């Protein structure tokens, strides 16, 4: 675990760079996390990020890509367009959550 400066704040991150404490996250930080990985957040991005935050608060773990797809009704193709390459990891990073544990 180490500390890094993001948006002028001291943020604790794990060895991969994911936030270790989801409670320090706010939308301003989310926008900056997205910018750092080359994503400019539009409304459809925010809908996903907010779903992830709410779902994490209830479930206690990060939703897998399939769960995001089934719960939000967002087509899989769109999830790959919004968060290209590694969608599940990118969206959880932006939402300040650990990467999902599930296989599917």
């Amino acid at each position, binding site marked *: 675990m*180490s500390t*890094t*400066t*993001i948006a002028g704040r001291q943020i604790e*991150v794990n060895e*991969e*760079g*994911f936030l270790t404490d989801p409670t320090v996250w706010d939308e301003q930080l989310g926008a900056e*996390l997205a910018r*750092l*990985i*080359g994503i400019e957040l539009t409304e459809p991005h925010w809908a996903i990020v907010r779903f992830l935050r709410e779902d994490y608060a209830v479930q206690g773990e990060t939703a897998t*890509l*399939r*769960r995001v*797809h*089934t719960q939000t009704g967002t*087509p*899989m*193709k769109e999830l*790959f367009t919004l968060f*290209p*390459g*590694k*969608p*599940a*990891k*990118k969206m959880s*990073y932006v939402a300040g959550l650990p990467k999902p544990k599930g*296989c*599917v």
Partner: protein
Amino acid sequence: MAETPFVPSFDDDASSGRKLAIICSKGNLDMAYPGLILANAALGEGIETHLFFTFWGFDMINKKTMHDLKFSYLGNTAMHPPGMFGVAMPQGLAGMPGMTAMTTKMMKKQIADLDVPEVPEFLEIIHASGGHLWACRMSADMMKLHEEDLVDGVEGIISASDFMELTDGAQLLFI
């Protein structure tokens, strides 16, 4: 000068340019899933993924059979009732009428409980995630099947050598 933030490297690691080829040759329910799960995981990691369906694996993409793959533990000495490790299931019982239907139903339930999709939906997801589905020419000829018999995401019926060309440089899994 402000320090550079420590950010996960999502795109610039070894996975860029990584390719995976999975050959699916089995039509049993339990043997359909490893390929689908690995393909789905690979796509989620940004890996270019190709699946080649051959022989019994054709049942996974044949519209007439894909909804109804079965699981039998006949010949599988590792089988135990769910959660009852070390309890053997008599092999002779596996061959009794109705047993395959029962074990299939049980396995489907366990898979559904994990919110893992059934085979047809899984193929749809893989296709929508950018995965490539290919059907084996020889199997199609043997079984007298055509593109219209196969699930929509299949891009073509191709020869083994076409598949080799397509997957140049890929890591390969035979299931």
